């Protein structure tokens, strides 16, 4: 690969895709909250900000903990592959040494980095979990009936950077080729995120916050211990 391709992909293209990602996600997040309507939703958001906040935080935090809610406990296998996928999917892109080196070149500093062994384990977990997530869609009737080609594409889009990342990391085949593909996959993911279901990266928090506010303000939060998620 020519140096200019690599420079392009880790230079302007990276800025562009990150820019689209960050601004796009911010826009979606803000628009979500601006589009809430106390009367149509039937939740007095503004009238009880403290209870709303408490409810929102409770609603989000409990679901971020593996087996932290009745929902997670009811589906142990799903919980394992879900967190197997998401923990790595969040931590590795952010804290991988290789990424942070690029970051240092681009903006001048790096974040904390993962132990390389840990990074490997997490990434493998992402890929294996993704396989099981796909299998789950095929095998379970209650998931099959909901699943469309779009779901598979999103999964592929999400896991492609990790697969290609591993291929590059283990230097299988042509390193430069797979590195390029890996970067392209990553940037495709970033660009697609605000416009697809990948927007759940922020909308998960938004939606959970809303339901948390609902339960915190209207549906019992002011009457005692709050919802036991």
């Amino acid at each position: 690969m020519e140096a200019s391709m690599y420079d392009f992909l880790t230079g302007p293209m990276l800025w562009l895709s990150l820019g689209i990602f960050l601004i796009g996600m911010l826009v979606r997040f803000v628009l979500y909250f601006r589009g809430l309507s106390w009367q149509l939703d039937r939740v007095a958001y503004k009238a009880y900000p403290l209870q709303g906040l408490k409810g929102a935080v409770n609603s989000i935090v409990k679901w971020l903990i593996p087996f932290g809610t009745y929902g997670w406990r009811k589906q142990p296998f799903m919980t394992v592959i879900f967190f197997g996928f998401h923990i790595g999917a969040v931590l590795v892109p952010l804290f991988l040494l290789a990424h942070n080196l690029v970051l240092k070149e681009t903006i001048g500093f790096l974040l904390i980095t993962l132990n390389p062994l840990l990074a490997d384990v997490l990434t493998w977990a992402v890929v294996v979990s993704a396989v099981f997530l796909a299998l789950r869609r095929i095998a379970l009737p209650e998931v099959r009936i909901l699943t469309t080609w779009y779901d598979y594409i999103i999964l592929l889009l999400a896991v492609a950077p990790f697969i290609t990342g591993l291929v590059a990391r283990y230097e299988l085949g042509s390193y430069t080729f797979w590195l390029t593909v890996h970067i392209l996959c990553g940037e495709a993911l970033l660009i697609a995120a605000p416009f697809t279901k990948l927007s759940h990266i922020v909308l998960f928090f938004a939606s959970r916050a809303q339901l948390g506010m609902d339960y915190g303000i209207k549906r019992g939060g002011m009457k005692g211990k709050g919802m036991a998620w």
Partner: protein
Amino acid sequence: MNPNNKIAGAILSDAALSLFHKKQRETSKFKEGCSMPEGKFCNKKPVETEEELKALLGDTGGKQYYEEMKSLDIDHELLWKTIQNTLKSRMKTWLEICAHCGMCADSCFLYLINDQDPRQVPAYKIQSTLGELVKRKGKVDNEFMHMVMETAWAKCTCCNRCGMYCPHGIDMGIMFGYVRGLCYQQGFVPWEMKIGAGMHRVYRAQMDVTDEDFVETFEWMVEEYEEDYPGLEVPVDKEGADILYTVNAREVKHYPEDLAEAAILFHLAGENWTVPTSGWEQTSLAMFAGDWAACKMQVEHVYAAMERLKPKRMVGTECGHAHRATVVEGPYWAGRSSGKPPVESIHYVEWLAEALREGKLKIDPTKRLKKPVTLQDSCNYVRNNGLKDITREIMSYIVEPGYFMEMSPNREHNYCCGGGGGFNGIGLFRPQRNKALITKRDQLLHSGAELVISPCHNCWDAIRDLEEEYKIGIKWSFLKPLVISMVEIPEHLKPKE
């Protein structure tokens, strides 16, 4: 009603829009000779007069009504316009962000009881109805709307349990409440629901019980029990009382003893209470029917009583959806941005727990329940208003320690009784409802209880029907008669012999 509230205006104007479109249709029909008239009973117009109500009731079982529904038109323009005006960020995101993960499946008792039929997965149910309505921009046909009606009223009781098990927090019960509103607007609503909504429009009560009937019956009941409880009375329209008591119209018609029992308990607790001559009905079948305009009228009627009589608090009867309609959701229908009714309003169990806690009512420990007892958690005020611990506090007073058996699951994770959301009353969907009762039946059997305490009219009815259908030998009761059987009568209130 704040005229500047655009959103409320959008909702309210549905009625106006509907009328406008109807006139438009009629005019164009006249011009073009269009041949799809609305039915005599089944149409987009709500039932608003006593004559219409009686006529609709006369169509036994809704025979002609459902026949007419087969050729009912959809007003596509109105439908889409309504969706655009009322389906905003929250619901739009819910529909879009669903990860199709299927985790909601085994949270839904209807999915579980129907042999885990994938078509009963909550996400599937809502995506195939509301999801489709949005995707097709309201361009749907009669057959589709029939399917939506069946899904919204026979495959969902709006118990809100699925929302608790979805990682994104997508509440499909709320969405089905919304869908019912769309169906009602288009006239695709079960016969009994249309009647129920009509009842509220005509009588401001769920049955044809007038204000006179209410006061008369209450006074009659008090007379019957006067000898056992000297000084028992029912103050009517008293201003500035501590408690304003509202009821379920079914008590007036079918279980008037409940009114007497309420009076007796207030009397024994020494409460300064009253009932309103007007605005005494706390329930809202209109909510089950999706008739938002009638919901608004109904709760405003009760709020007017609150504003007229200025009590310190309003206490409702033992009913789940009444509390949800009037206290939890009602303020929003009435445009109250505080989300609260004009006066602090509590459920009967909250009052009862307080009375027991503060010693206003004292239980004779020798008369406590000494048989295995369990407790039904009514969706509308346990899951959806946080009263899970209040009801258990009451149990601690009235059940001998060691005899209270929890159901499993319980509290906010408990299952719907099987008859919620109007399911109990819809003839067309009776088989589905009877199947749904199996969930609660099995819970009762596993709990080992002989008696289930069910402080909710709907749950009480569902359990009664459950026993009728499956004969498991369970006994069921409201709280009032149980408490009366074990309460100590203060000296000064005992009858003189």
